[in-house]
């Protein structure tokens, strides 16, 4: 359902969209049933002259049925939802897949900017050829990325809507997560945790590139990168 | 201003209104201290550094204060007995002794703290000390409040008025006591 508004550009994006849709239909069904019944009862039992209301205690088993059965069904729906929700959650947050050509990027949040440290041509962090960019993240499509998220001052939250990915950044801690882009494009990166006056003013962009584009981008970065490192 | 409403004199729950209320006060106080001590224990387990800091606390002063509070509680009990027996003057005397205990406790604390602060263990010196002053301070405020209320209650008890209040303040005092029973080992002994 969410693809309607936003492309699903990571391996787990469509799983998350699926959970959303599943819940939408399940609870949507219950919502519609409840509301229809509700309005029907109002229409059906409007006051009529000379007709008194009925005296129903709702304490009898035969009457309670109408509550207990639906609420058991709701319980069943809950179990369904829990199952799928937890499965996706495990995939995104608890597991940390690896791949031979995986790369690690460092994401540093601060009031009010994002610093993205790309591993650079050699594919390793903390080497001279790292490419450090502010509010600009470049990744290669179909490559597995780990990210090391941290913050310099207050809480921030690293959110890439097209990936359906979100993780708070906590000062003094490095949180590791992963994503694997599945389609190219340029998209928003948001900060979704209030972090002070400039919280609304720390937008960044993510560039998901083909291997070729990515390579040429790194090539043109080459020379400045050292300066950029010292600059941060 | 207005006379006590009839509502206050009813006991549909089978317990005098005053006692019922004091119990609810204690319940809500328990969660307050519970939250604070819970947070303390979490930190404590997370950082061994706490133990080193705790080593600087003076267990003997703490122990003495514990003793003082416990004895004062004893007087509170005696006061309750006297009140039940309808002997307001005796009850009042007992309450004075109880509050004397509270005052001793506070003076000792004052000395203890000024000593520690002079040694540089201020509230911001280390998170242990932050908890130390916050928890003990919150407790000390309760002691102070208890003493004040106790003196008020005693004043009316001397004239054989509102004797049921003697029990209530006693109840509260026991609670303040119990809180300290938790604070003492957590802040002083566990090193």
């Amino acid at each position: 359902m969410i693809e309607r508004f936003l492309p699903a550009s990571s391996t787990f994006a469509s799983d998350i969209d699926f959970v959303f849709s599943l819940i939408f239909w399940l609870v949507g069904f219950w919502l519609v049933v409840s509301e229809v019944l509700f309005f029907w009862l109002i229409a059906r039992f409007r006051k009529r002259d000379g007709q008194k209301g009925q005296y129903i205690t709702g304490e009898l088993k035969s009457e309670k049925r109408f509550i207990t059965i639906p609420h058991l069904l709701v319980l069943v729906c809950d179990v369904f939802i829990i199952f799928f929700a937890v499965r996706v959650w495990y995939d995104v947050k608890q597991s940390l897949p690896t791949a031979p050509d995986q790369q690690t990027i460092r994401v540093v949040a601060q009031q009010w900017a994002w610093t993205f440290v790309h591993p650079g041509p050699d594919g390793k962090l903390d080497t001279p050829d790292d490419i450090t960019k502010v509010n600009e993240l470049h990744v290669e499509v179909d490559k597995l990325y780990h990210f090391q998220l941290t913050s310099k001052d207050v809480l921030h939250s690293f959110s890439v809507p097209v990936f359906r990915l979100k993780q708070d950044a906590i000062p003094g801690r490095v949180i590791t997560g992963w994503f694997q882009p599945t389609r190219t494009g340029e998209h928003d990166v948001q900060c979704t945790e209030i972090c002070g006056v400039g919280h609304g003013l720390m937008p960044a962009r993510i560039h998901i590139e083909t291997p070729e584009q990515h390579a040429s981008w790194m090539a043109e970065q080459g020379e400045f990168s050292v300066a950029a490192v010292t600059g941060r | 201003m207005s006379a006590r409403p009839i509502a206050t004199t009813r006991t549909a729950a089978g317990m005098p209104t005053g006692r019922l209320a004091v119990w609810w006060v204690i319940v809500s106080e328990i969660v307050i201290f519970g939250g604070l001590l819970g947070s303390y224990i979490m930190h404590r387990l997370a950082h061994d550094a706490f133990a080193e800091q705790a080593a600087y606390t003076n267990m003997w002063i703490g122990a003495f204060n514990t003793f003082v509070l416990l004895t004062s509680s004893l007087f509170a009990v005696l006061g309750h007995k006297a009140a039940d027996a309808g002997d307001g003057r005796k009850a009042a005397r007992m309450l004075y002794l109880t509050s004397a205990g509270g005052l001793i406790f506070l003076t000792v604390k004052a000395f203890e703290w000024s000593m520690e602060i002079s040694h540089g263990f201020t509230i911001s010196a280390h998170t242990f000390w932050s908890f130390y002053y916050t928890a003990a301070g919150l407790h000390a405020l309760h002691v102070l409040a208890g003493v004040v209320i106790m003196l008020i209650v005693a004043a009316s008890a001397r004239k054989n008025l509102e004797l049921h209040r003697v029990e209530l303040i006693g109840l509260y005092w026991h609670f303040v006591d119990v809180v300290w029973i938790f604070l003492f080992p957590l802040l002083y002994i566990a090193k």
Partner: protein
Amino acid sequence: MAESIPVDHSHAHADDHEHHAEPGFVQKYLWSTDHKMIAMQYMFTGMAMALLGGFFAYVFRMQLAFPGIEVPLFGIVSPHEYNALITNHGAIMIFWVAMPVLIAAFGNFLIPLMIGADDMVFPKLNRLSYQIFLLSALILLASFFVEGGAFGGAWTMYPPLSANSEYNQTPLGTTLFIGAVGLEFVAFLIGGINFVTTAMNSRAPGMKMYDIPMVVWMIVIASILFMASVGPLIAGAVMLLFDHNLGTAFFDPQRGGDPILWQHLFWFFGHPEVYVVLLPAVGIVAEIITVFARKKLFAYKTVLYTAFGTGVLSFTVWAHHQFIAGIDPRMANVFTITTLLISVPIAEMMFVYIATLYGGSITLSTPMLWALAFIAEFLIGGVTGIFLGASGADIYLHDTYFVLAHFHYTFFPIAIIGTFAGVSFWYPKMFGRMLNETLGKIHFWGTVIPFNLIFIPLFVLGAAGEHRRIWDFTQFPELAAAPLRNLDKLATVSLVIMLAFQAVFLFNFFWSLRRGQKAGKNPWQSNTLEWTAESPPPHGNWKQLPTVYRGPYEYSVPGREQDFWPQNEPN
């Protein structure tokens, strides 16, 4: 019994609410210990704060829809002002509107009247609780005028932002904000103890547990929930104040503190809190639908159990606000399960209410319309909570406008619709006169229709990735897209319309104080005890305190020509 009430009070009511300017003004209106007067103080304070909170919403919604314009009645909205406005809007609406009106105002007014007592058990404590509450409100308002401006770190006050004025840049504002919230908690602890003790101990002779009107039960359960959950946060508030002002490091990760601890303390209170305001509202609704459907409440005991169940469960779900906050990801699974389970008792409660309508004889008076609207709208708010409770989906939805729409679809029905239901229902008892039905209905439709037009667009925006607490979305190319911006404009315009219609309510409310037609003792032909007192009830409520013979919902009992059966009527 009544004789024991001093005479000078027994007829003081005669000129209550009438000519305000006479000597005893302070004594009667500001220093009174009468539970009804204190209820009024809470209600009018809450009303003023609601209008303020609504005004804040208007200002920042204007900024969202038309970034950078000079908002009429306010001016240009700076990023800091924006944050301060939403933060205080949230805090005001929950702590200074929902709680004082639903719990304190209705609790104070209804509990003694509904259980047949002459007042709260501790009138002076009651007065004290209001005075502390008023003080907290004044401190909050003051924070707007101090050096650096009001606090803007969200109503959740997450440290380190809230723990260090270098980060939040509002040294005084932050202190005042935290202080105000802390004081408000204390006020409601005192009030709550009073409510619970009164309801437990001072019931009229003959009123057994299951003869207590549902709204009293709900307010009592809510007060207990509050008492049991707020403690840790009070401690936390003290710690946060020390961090901010004394340089302690409880929540400062750089110096061995833990910022997540605050989130646990906050949400351990924060989630039960949402049921603290929910329960009184559903209680009010129970009273109203039974009266206007002339029906016995379907399965009284079941409703009670669901309320207890919700209360207990509510202590086990708090971390669903922190799924992606950096807690141990394994913990999320536990909280997903508990969170979804809580839908069961609430679903059951809603089903019970719907079932209560079956076989009724329904009159769609204004209070009934509000009560029904509560059910219809709250269902939407409730089910959208499920999306958020599902950890997998919340990764995406967290802190988007989907969350926002979710909780406005719960809070608005509770704090605004529920309040209007209660006020329009008990107005005759409070002031002895009827509200105007036509104006009431105009106000109803003028509020409920725009409400949906405000928040349904926000669901869509949330699903599209629009996130919370953003001063200007146009700098996010994807969010700046025209269709999304138009939805924001729709929401804002609807809000302006809704606010305009509040004038109808306010006019109706104050005009009817004098001009409304006189209400008898029992205009709705209701069963509960408050309707056996004069309207408005005198100080002491009854000359002769009532005795109870039956449950509160004996409507349309077969074999009686009258279709209601007051609780105090001997068989």
